[in-house]
């Protein structure tokens, strides 16, 4: 059983004693009425009651009985300040929409993970930067086109498409369409489930889309040599700068 705080126990004792004294016929002065409601407020309440009566009389023309004001009391019978009317189960009157979920504190559980991840990637890029130097070729020269000239790696998929389609299709229409459809993905896919087994079509389509670009980028990066002709990197060497 839960522990009852001391001050509540004390208050209950007092109330019990007072109730006992009353029942024995010795009227105990009700402290609550005397102390808690100041005289001037009681007077004001009475005055307001009178005014209401006169107003009602003027308007309706009939005599209205002045309302019987009950003597204000600060406590109920036997000294209780509240009475238990009924017990209602929470589900019957409250519509609980939010189910309680299992939650953990961000500190330390999430922040530690984030900190370690940040540390790891900092360490990785630091070590990589110490050992591998960024390329700096000779000064830009408009009269000497390197062979092959390649775009940055993330655009090599597009450059690969250039070998197959008209530049407007390869450079604008296909990437534009891909980006547009990507933005619209949540509005096209109205399936509310996020379970992989319920969205096989969406997952297949996206996988094909991602693979499409990944394969094109890899061909453009590693399998294209002088003249942007098809080569094998293990036979003809690497023509790729990051």
């Amino acid at each position: 059983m839960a522990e009852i705080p001391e001050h509540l126990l004390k208050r209950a004792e007092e109330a019990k004693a007072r109730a006992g004294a009353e029942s024995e016929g010795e009227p105990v002065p009700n402290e609550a009425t005397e102390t808690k409601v100041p005289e001037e407020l009681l007077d004001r309440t009475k005055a307001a009651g009178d005014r209401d009566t006169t107003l009602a009389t003027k308007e309706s023309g009939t005599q209205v009985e002045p309302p019987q004001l009950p003597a204000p009391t600060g406590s109920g019978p036997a000294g209780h300040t509240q009475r238990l009317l009924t017990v209602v189960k929470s589900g019957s009157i409250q519509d609980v929409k939010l189910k309680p979920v299992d939650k953990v504190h961000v500190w330390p559980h999430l922040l530690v993970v984030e900190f370690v991840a940040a540390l790891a990637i900092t360490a990785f890029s630091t070590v990589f930067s110490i050992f591998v130097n960024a390329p700096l070729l000779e000064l830009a020269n408009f009269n000497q086109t390197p062979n092959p000239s390649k775009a940055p790696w993330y655009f090599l998929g597009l450059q690969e498409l250039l070998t197959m389609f008209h530049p407007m299709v390869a450079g604008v229409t296909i990437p534009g369409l891909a980006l547009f459809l990507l933005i619209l993905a949540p509005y096209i896919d109205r399936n509310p489930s996020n379970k992989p087994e319920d969205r096989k079509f969406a997952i297949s389509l996206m996988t094909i889309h991602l693979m499409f670009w990944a394969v094109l980028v890899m061909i453009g990066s590693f399998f294209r040599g002088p003249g942007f002709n098809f080569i094998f990197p293990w036979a003809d060497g690497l023509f790729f700068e990051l």
Partner: protein
Amino acid sequence: MAKQSLGEKLADISEKTKSSQAWNSIFRPGSIFRKGYSDSPRNRSYVVMNSLIYHLHPVKVKRHAVKVSYTLCLGGLSFFLFILLTVTGIFLMFFYRPTAAQAWDDIYTLQTSVTFGLFVRNMHRWTAHLMVLTVFLHMARVFYHGAYKAPREFNWVIGVILLTLTLLLSFTGYLLPWDQLALWAVTVGTNMMGYTPVFGDQVRFVLLGGVEIGTDTLLRWYVLHVLMLPFVAVIFMAIHFWRVRKDGGISGPL
């Protein structure tokens, strides 16, 4: 009034200091600088609530949200790489002038005569490539978890915009060293944009600051790279992070 003794004066100063706003924000509840930090649920909440972290994270998250195997930290890492790139980028700006006559020499001098110059440039370049990768993988992760579905549709749109901005940031930075690699990679890229229907030539002219790549292009792409695109990206990132919390934290579990 009686003259204060030295001890009283010191006590007075110490009291004023301890009731100042600066003192109370450094030694706030939950601060690691506060004497007697103990690991209690109350202090765990204070650490988040009374610090800048509260802009990014709520006090508590769903238990599955802290699993590394769910997010692989890709979104957070993209943001962290953006910060790393800002820091290294500011360092590089001290040694670089965006004109055709000076750009390449500045990079060369940076690598050969500036302390940590080569290292910081390497770091900037490799983390830039890494960021393109993490942003791309983050998008794939979000798609495969169906995290773009209601109520997160709008945040997905912001995310795709951020992916585009990341590519543009990387591409504008590609020209700045003004070497053969930069010049011809950008030539290939901008030639493609010239094929935009109806106003292709105008698009190309605006991007290059002329009909050919030159010193004007360099200045234009430099301003885009160090100021305009990061500015826009930061705004979209702020909306992106705010939407994550607004939409009820990260998605899932599956």
